[in-house]
């Protein structure tokens, strides 16, 4: 019963928040709504017993990601009202609703498979974090490490792209210009 109430409550809340995120004209609203939605999502995780995931969600998303976005918003000066010319709202809305309807249409039927064999079963008597740790560092060690590398890649990418060096494009400069610029650079360095 509690579960049901919580589910519906959070469902509605998340849906509304996300809806606001995608429709509002106020960038700030959108950001706030997104953050709120994410937090509500973590509620589902907790309901479903995925405590670790819930925590990660709050920390990574609401903490890190939203902070990045907030920073971005300030950088891009999008705090004021957005002026968006929406191309063809009908198509847009139609497509998304259709996709939802189709999937839902299928999902309302229960899955009938009986042959499901889980690969990483929950280990009885452990906390969620423990068992996740167990799986993460055995079976999913490779993806985990790779994810780390991926984050490294993302970091390098972010740094390089946002870096000062990008302000001047060697691609567009003629060779002579590059020479001059390098000389100038050296003088500064000296």
């Amino acid at each position, binding site marked *: 019963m509690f579960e049901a109430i919580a589910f519906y409550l959070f469902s509605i809340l998340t849906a509304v928040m996300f809806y606001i995120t995608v429709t509002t004209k106020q960038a700030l609203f959108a950001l706030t709504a997104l953050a709120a939605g994410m937090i509500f999502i973590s509620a589902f995780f907790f309901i479903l017993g995925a405590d670790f995931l819930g925590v990660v969600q709050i920390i990574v998303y609401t903490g890190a990601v939203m902070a990045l976005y907030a920073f971005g918003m300030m950088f891009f000066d999008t705090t004021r009202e957005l002026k968006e010319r929406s*191309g063809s709202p009908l*198509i*847009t809305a139609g*497509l*998304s609703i*259709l*996709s939802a309807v*189709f*999937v839902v*249409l*299928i999902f309302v039927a229960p899955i009938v498979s009986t042959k499901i064999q889980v690969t990483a079963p929950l280990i009885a008597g452990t906390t969620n974090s423990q068992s996740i740790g167990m799986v993460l560092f055995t079976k999913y060690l490779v993806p985990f490490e790779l994810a780390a590398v991926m984050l490294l890649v993302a970091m390098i990418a972010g740094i390089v792209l946002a870096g000062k060096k990008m302000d001047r494009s060697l691609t567009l400069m003629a060779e002579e210009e590059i020479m001059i610029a390098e000389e100038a650079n050296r003088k500064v360095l000296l």
Partner: protein
Amino acid sequence: MELYLYIALFSPLVGALFAGLFGASPKTLLTGVVNSSLLFASFLSSAVLLGYVLNGQTVHVEMMEWMATGNLYIPFGFVVDQVSVTMMMVVTTVSTVVHVYSIGYMDHDKGFNRFFSYLSAFVFSMMVLVMSDNFAGLFIGWEGVGLCSWLLIGFWYHKESATWAANEAFIMNRIADLGMLIGIFLVYWNTGSLQYDKAFAVMPTLDNMTLTYIGVFLFIGAMGKSAQFPLHTWLADAMEGPTPVSALIHAATMVTAGVYLVVRANPLYHMIPEMGLFIASLGAFVAMFAATMALVNRDMKRIIAYSTLSQLGYMFVAAGLGAYWVALFHLMAHAFFKALLFLGAGNVMHAMDDELDPFKMGGLRKSMKWTFIMMTLASVALAGIYPLAGFFSKDAILEVGFVEHHYVIYTVLLLTAGLTAFYSFRLVALIFHGEERYKVFGFHPHEAYKFVLIAMSPLALLAVIAGSFKSTYFEMVTKILPNTEYHIHSEVTEWTMIIGTQLFVILAIFFAYKKYINFKGENKEFEKRLVYKVLINQYYVPYFYEEYITKPYRELSTIFWKKVDLKVVDATVDCIANGIYKAGENTRDMQNGSLSSMLRWMVAGTVILLSLAVAFGLAVRYADEISAVLSGLGA
């Protein structure tokens, strides 16, 4: 004997090549002399062969293989037998004369050498035609003479009318040649060979239908070459060529090739008498038809050409009725006097600066005595007056008609004989008698060179005496041809007929003289009559061809090109290509550079796939229900 055969056959070719070497250079008398000598050599060889054949022997050689594939075997084989030797004699005699004559006639022409080259080439082709021992070889000669005819008719190629006539002759002959080709195919597939002897040996085993087909198609070929109705129009137009050409090709030799073919194929036509009757009827019709056109024509050469046409009709009557030897005999006799007639006409033309209208001449007998004599002789022979050549040959044909009980044909031919006499002497009268009308036009006629006249004299001689060879000839040629003699049973009838005919002809001559000897002005009244109009317009046949065949063909061609080929066939191809290209042009906006629409496309693609998935999923899930519903609907 083979040597003589090869000399007879190839010396004209040597001449042609020799003259051809100088083809583009200005006149060298040498070519004329050399070619004439070569032709004379050919004539002598033919004569030797004739002597050989008269002894009852024939020569048959196979020079080399030409085509051989599958079952087909065609050699270059030549046969000198009684039939071909006749033709060889005719061809070589007339052509030798014409060659010598041409030295004089073409004296001032730029294309002197070229002319001799063509002329000799023609003789070679003609020799191939008559000497070949198979249908394919015959066809070589057949086409070869066609080519030479084209070259010679169009000899003065700067004249529009000459080139037009040349093309007409070639194309019309080609139409007939197709028939001949089909005939040859039929022979091959039914008898397995194209050799005369083998093919004719097999023919009796074939059914009548096949034989008729073969006969019909071969005869179509003959119709073209011999200018039988309805393929006759080219012959009159062919008179655009130099006169010696008309004498040689369009009177004496080439046009008789059709007759030769029918004679050659006598074993075949013998088996299909219905076809023979048709040939005879057509021949009779053409004889009359052409003679009527000659009555009113105002072109000297055309008149003679129509006369040729008419005489060819006679020959076909004989050949069609099975009197092959008679046909051949008339062919021979006709060759001599008709060539003579043409050469005489050539002299007149030369004298009159190529004027062809006899109404502008008159009284030429004073200045051109020898020509006058020879032409008159030829005309008498043509008219069939005893004892000249024409009498023996033409009367024989009349007799054939009578004896074979084809009285209609006989009557037609008899009437034609009268017409022939009439128009021949109309021409003689207009040219040589009466007032000297040419003076008005400022002509200064003169007699031809002496050697020209001498060259013509053998023909004149032959025109006179050829009839006397009749029995000898009969002896010889019937060794391979059916030896039917045509004698009217009762002598009274026979004599009545001969005398009657002679009287009729003489009457016609007299009438012609009377009407035209003192010709003053033109008979305007007569020219308004329908008869005249029909005749002068050649029964509107050329008009019909021009309006209903040539023009539509030309227009259809243009339509095919401009409308069908460019607008339909090609346009379809381009349309497909352009369609594809346009499709690209029109849909490239899908890629409008906007990220939003890109994303939308992606989602749209997914949604479409989803909808398909749903539809499919539902269909699978409710397969039973769907089939139940469908069966309920009666599907």
